[in-house]
Structure formats: C-alpha cells, structure tokens
C-alpha cells in the first residue's frame, strides 16, 4: 500500500515537472516512480508494438530514395527540394537558373550521396528552407 502511494505521488511529480516548459524530463522522478510501482505481468500487445511516437503511422511519404532519384533526374527544376519539405517556391530559383547553372544541382546530388554512403541519411536536408541546403 505504501509502495502504491509513493508511486502515485511520484506520478504526480512527473506530471507536474513535465508540464513545465522545458525539453528535458525529470529522469530521477520517473525512475523513482517506476521503482516504487507495483510490478504486474499484465500483457498488452499495445506495449509491445513498435510505435514510439504516439500517433498512427500512415505510410512512408518522404523517402530518401525518392528524394535522390528526383534530384538525379529532375534536380535542375528544384522539385526535389519541394518534395523534401522546403518552401513551396524553392523550385523557382532552381528552374530560372537551371539548378544554379548545374552547380547547385550537382552539389545537391553529391551531398545526398555522401549522406547515404556515410550513413547519416538525408534527414538534415528535409524541411530545409535555405536555397543551398548543405550550408
């Protein structure tokens, strides 16, 4: 009973701390709440699902392979930048200059390939509002 009460107090503390406008959790309070909670063996498939994000995943819309293929074949139009979540008008400077006279287009391909090869992926280029996404 004491353990249950302590766990409830700790849960309240977690909620209070987590409501504050900061971006770090109170790990000590969370660990204490878990430590003081009653272990149950209730099996719930929801616990074992792979979803860590709390929202339904509805498909792979943004894809590194698609991004690099768009860059490769249509990069001079800037369509790959729009696909990768940049501002909607990003295609205009690309199209007007032929992908920065081919230079920006080529560097986009090179940096994307580097991202794929070194394993860092293209994540850093998504949602990027800069005309030169790799700067």
């Amino acid at each position: 009973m004491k353990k249950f009460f302590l766990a409830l107090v700790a849960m309240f503390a977690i909620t209070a701390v987590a409501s504050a406008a900061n971006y770090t959790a109170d790990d000590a309070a969370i660990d204490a709440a878990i430590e003081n909670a009653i272990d149950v063996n209730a099996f719930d498939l929801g616990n074992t699902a792979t979803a860590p994000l709390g929202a339904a995943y509805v498909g792979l819309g943004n894809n590194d392979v698609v991004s690099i293929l768009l860059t490769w074949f249509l990069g001079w139009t800037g369509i790959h930048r729009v696909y990768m979540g940049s501002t909607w008008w990003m295609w205009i400077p690309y199209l007007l200059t032929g992908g920065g006279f081919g230079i920006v287009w080529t560097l986009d391909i090179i940096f994307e390939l580097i991202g794929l090869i070194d394993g860092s992926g293209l994540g850093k280029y998504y949602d990027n509002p800069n005309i030169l996404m790799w700067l």
Partner: protein
Amino acid sequence: MAVVLRKDLISAALLLIALGAFAQRRASADVEVKSLADGKVTTVTKRVFCQGNGRLVTVFSSPYEYTTVTNLKGEFKLYVPSSNEVFSRVDQSFASGNELLYLFLAGRQDNLGLLGMGYTLQGSSYDEEGYLKRTYTTKKKDTAPTVELVLKDYLPVYVAYLDHSGNVLSKMYLSQYTKGSRLVFPTRVTEITYNKEKHDSTVVRTIYSSISTEGTDPHFDFQVPAGAKPAGNPLDAMKKK
C-alpha cells in the same frame, strides 16, 4: 560521345552503390520498455534487428518469448516458437516505420518520420538556448492535428502532440544520445500520455542498450518456419508451454 557515355555509366554505378549501401544498413539494440500507470508497472524486454530497407525483426524475451517480423507496409508476422504458431496481419500500426531505431537508421531523425505521417512543416524558430522548434500540422482526423518537434544540434530532444485547443495529448523526451561510428541514437526515451477523462497520465520509459551496427547476427534474416501453424489468438499461443 563515348566519354559522355562512360561518365553516365560511372555515375549510375555510383548511384546504385550508394542506394545499395543505404538499403543494407543494419542495426540492433536491446530494449527495455517499462509502462507505468495507476501505480502499476509492466515490463517488456526485447532485442530489435533493423535494416535500412525497413525489415524489422524483434525478438521478445519477456513477459513471453516470441518473435515478430514486419516491414514498412505493416506486413506483420508474430511467431511463437514454443507452440510453432504464427499470427499474420497487415496493419500500419505495426509498420517498421514506427520504430525509433529505423527512423534514425534511415536518417529521419530530423523530422522523426512526421512528413511520412502526413504532417507538413508550418514554421521553425530558434530559442535563446539554441533549441530549434519546429511545428508540424496535419488535417488527418485520426491523429494529433499539431506536433511540436524540438531539436538540439539537429537531434530531436522533445516531441509534443497537441489537440485543436493546443493542449498536450502526449509528449516524448529523447536523451542520453550515444554516438557510435555509424549511428547516433537516444538511449533513453520517455513518453508521457495524458488521459483527460481520468485526469491521469501514463509514462513509458524505454531504455536502449547494446546498440550495434554489426549486421552479421542471423536474426536479421529471420524467417518464420514454413511449417508453422496459423494461430487464431497470439496471446493464447504465447501462453502455451
């Protein structure tokens, strides 16, 4: 003409090599998930084996021993070795794109797969402490309309799902990043989900350990045995000894 053709062939070969290397990336990790609600805690332990092409094998060790295989399309199989039974289902909630290890392996740490979920970026700004805050929205009805994603040094540290009134539905903290030779990954993830009706919350703490980018473990290529019997209820199959 021949020189131009040769350049094209070399470029195409480089592209194929890069795409192939990306698809073959592999990582595995031990995972302990503790879920806390109403003063009670449940524990799930497993090891995940993730590939760059989205194939995800998860070997659960407690509370029951079983193995799941899934991919980006949510083509999910659950195999119970003790009874040699298999449960199959196609469900996006089981898709490997939901697995944090896959998101980092695939380089989606920058948006945590939100773009793939149908969210669009509405704005971003830096605060005084150097945190980059991005706001995503969606019009889909089955998910939170607004998500706030906060990054520090281009790594996600905080995600909040908000309702139409701006109230937090759930929030997630990602911390204790490990920087291996090929994978940067948070070893501690805490998710807090608020239950407005019960005036309560659920806390899920996930600890990742023994993270490896060695792709030689045979579990990466695990296949459900051809002779496995179809299971009606996976939980019943797991309880069989």
